[in-house]
Every structure is written in C-alpha cells, then in structure tokens.
C-alpha cells in the first residue's frame, strides 16, 4: 500500500517518451506513403476473383442504392455491371462495396476496390494528386440548394447569413465557400459526416438549406423528405460537377477498359442500339453497329478483351439513354430531365470518342 502514491511519479518520465515515439513513427509513415506506386494488373485480379469489386455510395437513390429486394441498382451501379459484363461476361459478377464520402478515395488507393463508381466529381486536385484517373463522365451535375418552401427563398443569392447543411468529404464545402464569398452572403456551413445526417438536419429545421449535387437533392426530396411538396430545389447551380467512374493510376489497360465501356454505352445511344437489339443480335450493315455488336472488326483485342465485349455490356444494362431513364429519368422516381446529359447530337454534352 505505501508504494501506491509513488506509482504515478514513477511512470511520468516513461510516459512522455512513450508518447514521442508514436508521433515520429507516424510522421515517418506519412513521409513514406506519399509516393504510392501500384503494380497494374487489375484485369488479372478481376479474372482470378471472377468478379469486379466496385465502390458505390451508401445509398443515393437513382445512382447507387439497394432496391426493395436488396439488389444494388442505379446509374453508377449499372456502369459497374457493364464493366463486369464486358470483362467477365456476366453483369451480375460485381461485388459492391458501399463507401461514404471519406472512405471512397482510401478504398481505391488501397486496392480494396477495382473501380469507384460513386457520384464522384472530376476535379483537378482529385485527378492529379490522389493517384487516380477519372475515366469518363457518366452524369453532368451541378451543386444546388434544397430549401423549405415556407422560407420563400426563390434564388440562391438570397441565402444571406443562412445556415446551410452539407456533407463532409465532398466538393460541396469548397463550392459553398466560393459562392458565399463571391456573393458576400456570409453563409455558415454545418458539416455532417454522413449523407443522411445532413438532410435530416434540414428536415428538423436546423438549417435553412441543404446543399449537394442537384441530382442528389432530387433524390433526397423525392425519397427522404417527409413531404416533397414542402421542399424545393432552387434553380441556381453554383458549380460544375461532372460525375464518373474512377480507377487507380498505374494500370493503363484497366483504365482503358472502364473508359471505353462507358463510351460504348454512349455510342450505342447515338447509334440507337437498345438493350433488346443487343440481346437479339439484330444484323446490321452499318460498320459502326457491327463493331459494337462484335460482328465486325475486333475492337476487343485492343483492350485485352474478346470481340463481343461491348455487345455483352449493352445486353446487360442497355445503352446510356436507357440506363439514364431507368435509374434517374422519366421511368424512375427522381424524374430528372436529361438536360446536358443528352447526346451531343441531340443538344446535350455527352460525347463519346469514336469506337474505331
């Protein structure tokens, strides 16, 4: 017993040393990890495992969310299914990994997933400094505001001094700060670490607006709000948010496969090749159609795949227009207009380089 009061004194000098060691260990780790090199054999890994591991959101209706039967569905999900169909011959051979905004990049960097298809905006910082390649644009979005209609705010520029709920780990925070400064609004962000917490705080009345990509706002308004009529998405978009699948650097073959699978779906829409036609293998005299259906020149071998890769992708999910309408467009709950996501020859911005 008499030694007891002495114990804390005995431990003190040791404790400070014990503290300094982990600090420097971590500093050293941080320095070492800055240069990440990856051996690029993603395709071999995918074939060996027999499935594509695809990072998706924890549940953004229309983009990636489990449906009533627990099957993953959405625009981002269909991109992964198309890749799996092209590579493995079966759109069901996908392992979906739900990731929040903060986990997503680490999951891709660490090789936990083969492709990140999770409403992720293409920006210079992300493309150039995180060790990623953005492959293609699958949805052209912009950041907007969801506000309660009872506040009677018609335009985003009238949100002076408002408290705005946002999700952490997104480009949203930075855009909001830029918009607030440019318009001298003094907007106060309230940052939540989960997608759900942000809009729940809006519904509880904690903030006067919720800011996210306009597509996500439509999803929140229609699926999550207590009464969709009580909330409105403001017409102003304050940023460009091109969303698309992302792959790790250092594997050019895999980069090309994901990129050209997306382009194949977009080119198929331009050529009018639907899911049904791809399944039925309707013969065509058009060389462009033949290439896509795998009956003409062999484009697959250039990607390290077989001749019918694009036909299988189309058979699995349909062309880009079908994917859009089924998940977020007219045939879905979200009813988002095509807008800029129409093909270039119909007044939109979707433009696939030629598959030849």
């Amino acid at each position: 017993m008499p030694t007891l009061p002495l114990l804390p004194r005995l431990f003190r000098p040791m404790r400070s040393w014990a503290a300094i060691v982990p600090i420097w260990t971590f500093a050293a780790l941080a320095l070492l990890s800055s240069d990440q090199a990856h051996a690029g054999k993603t395709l071999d890994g995918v074939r060996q495992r027999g499935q594509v591991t695809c990072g998706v959101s924890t549940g953004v209706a229309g983009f990636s969310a489990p449906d009533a039967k627990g099957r993953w569905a959405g625009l981002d999900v269909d991109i992964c299914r198309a890749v799996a169909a092209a590579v493995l011959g079966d759109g069901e051979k996908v392992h979906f990994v739900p990731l929040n905004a903060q986990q997503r990049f680490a999951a891709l960097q660490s090789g936990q997933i083969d492709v990140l298809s999770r409403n992720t905006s293409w920006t210079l910082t992300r493309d150039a400094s995180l060790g990623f390649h953005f492959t293609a644009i699958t949805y052209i979005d912009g950041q907007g505001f969801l506000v309660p209609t009872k506040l009677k705010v018609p335009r985003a520029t009238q949100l002076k001094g408002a408290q705005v709920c946002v999700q952490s780990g997104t480009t949203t925070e930075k855009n909001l700060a830029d918009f607030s400064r440019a318009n001298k609004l003094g907007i106060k962000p309230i940052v939540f670490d989960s997608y759900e917490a942000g809009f729940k705080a809006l519904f509880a009345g904690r903030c006067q607006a919720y800011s996210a990509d306009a597509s996500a706002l439509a999803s929140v308004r229609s699926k999550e709000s207590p009464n969709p009529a009580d909330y409105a998405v403001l017409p102003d978009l304050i940023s460009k948010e091109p969303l698309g699948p992302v792959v790790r650097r250092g594997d050019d073959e895999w980069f090309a496969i994901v990129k050209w699978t997306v382009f194949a779906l977009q080119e198929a829409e331009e050529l009018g090749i639907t899911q049904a036609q791809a399944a039925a293998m309707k013969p065509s005299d058009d060389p462009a159609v033949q290439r896509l259906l795998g009956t003409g020149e062999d484009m697959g071998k250039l990607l390290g795949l077989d001749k019918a890769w694009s036909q299988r992708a189309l058979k699995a999910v349909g062309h880009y227009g079908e994917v859009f309408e089924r998940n977020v467009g007219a045939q879905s709950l979200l009813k988002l207009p095509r807008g800029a996501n129409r093909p270039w020859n119909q007044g939109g911005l979707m433009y696939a380089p030629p598959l030849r």
Partner: protein
Amino acid sequence: MSTWDFLLQPAGFDIGETGLFAFEATQPVWRALLVGLGNTLRVSLPALVLATVLGLLLALARGSASRSWRLLSTSVVDAVRLVPLLLQLLIWYLLLVEWLPDANEAMQVLPGVWLSKGGLAFPWPARGDAGWAWSWPVQETFNVQGGGAVTPEFLSVMLALSVYTGAFLAEVFRSGIEAVSASLLEAAETLGATRWQVIRRVLLPQALRTIVPATTNQYLNLVKNSSLAVAVGYPDLVSVGNTTLNQTGRAVECVAVMMALYLAMSLLTSAAMNAFNARRALQGGEA
C-alpha cells in the same frame, strides 16, 4: 518535406463556428486545424467543469441519508453509464433541434437572450469603431445575428460529454470516499476532532489519493470523446481534419496531425493532474 506543404495552402472551405478565432476560406490549412483544435477545447473545458460539478452532486446524493435521493442518483448514474455516448449525443441533439423554435422565429428567453434551432444567442462584448461595446443579438430574416452565440451542436456536445463523464465521476468520487477505512475516521473522532476536521484532515487526503488518478482518466476520456462531435456537425478537430483530408487527399498526414494534437492535449491534461496529485500525495503521505 513537400508532403506537408498542404498545411500552408489556402483551406478553401468555411467553418460554421470558429469560437474565439476568426477564420476565412482564404486562410491556410493549418489555421483551419487550429480553429478545429480551438473548438475542441472550447467544448471540452466547460464540459470538464460541468462534469465535475455534476459528478460531485450525484456522489453527494448517492451518499445522502435520504433513500429517494440515493435511488435517484443511482438510477441516473446507471442509466447514463450503460448507454453508448454516441447515442446520448444524438438524443441531446435531436431533442434540442426538434423542440426549439425555428431560427427565423427565435424565442427571447431573457432580454437579449434568444433560443432557437439556430442556437443560443446572448449579448457579448465586441470591438467596434468606438472600442469595446456590448453587441446585442437581433432577429433577422433567417436567424438571430450579432452578439455571442453557441449552436445547438455545441450545446448538445457539451451536455452529452458533461452528463456522461459526470456519471462516471460520481462513481469515482463515491468509491474513493468509501475506500477510506472507517476505523480511521472513528479514531479521529475519538481523538476529539470535529466533523469538519475529520473530513478535511482525514477523509479527503485519503480519498483524493484514489480519486485523482481515476479522475485523470475520466478527464482524458472526455477530451478524446469530444471527437464524436462530428456526428452532430460540430466543427471540432476531427470534423475540420476530415474536411481537410478530403479536400487535400492527404489521409495519413491529416490523421497523423490529429493524433499528435490529441496526444498533446492528453499529455497536458495528464501532466496537470499529475502535478496536482503529487502535491496531494505528499500532503497525505506524511500523515
């Protein structure tokens, strides 16, 4: 050391509440982290005081002669100790945010003190053109502006941490007092010491020996537990650190910075408590 250059880059994001610091998106990342650290301390320090007071009250109630006080204290302490802190934090937040009036129709609880979903606003000295003056909060279109203000996020984090740690401290205090041998107290009484003298000279020096180290642990836990604040949107060190991590992509570096700062805070707390304990131990040790 290009790895750490990002600390000097402009942050690019705003922070909802900045406490005593001023912060703008154009300021560097290290400054944003400093604001986060400031917010962590701003919520932890009042919570430390409140938790100690609450712990003392609960411990006193538990040792009271009245059966109902004992029952009340026991049930509060047990209920709070047995529910995860994260849930308690969310409950406090939901209660505050659901029950309070909207920010555009705040209620004035006292002259100049407004309570709403936007938080608690109160008069606060501010430096204007004519030197220091009291700034009074006023109701504006969306919310109350001016004066000093704490948000519901701040309030819920502070309350949750205080109550949770208070319940544990109550147990620490009780066990510390109960650990003092009754015969020592009886001996003091036999020697003719007054009740106050027994408490001051015999009970407390003995009890504090067991109480202080265990209290240190609880204080350390409180500061570390404040990192749960991110769940209710309070911009503490972890929240700002996460945002930085996502804007810069420097995951390992950001986590290392956060760990180092928490470590520093814990070491400081621990050192302060050890200094206090050393003084106490000497005093009691000679008896």
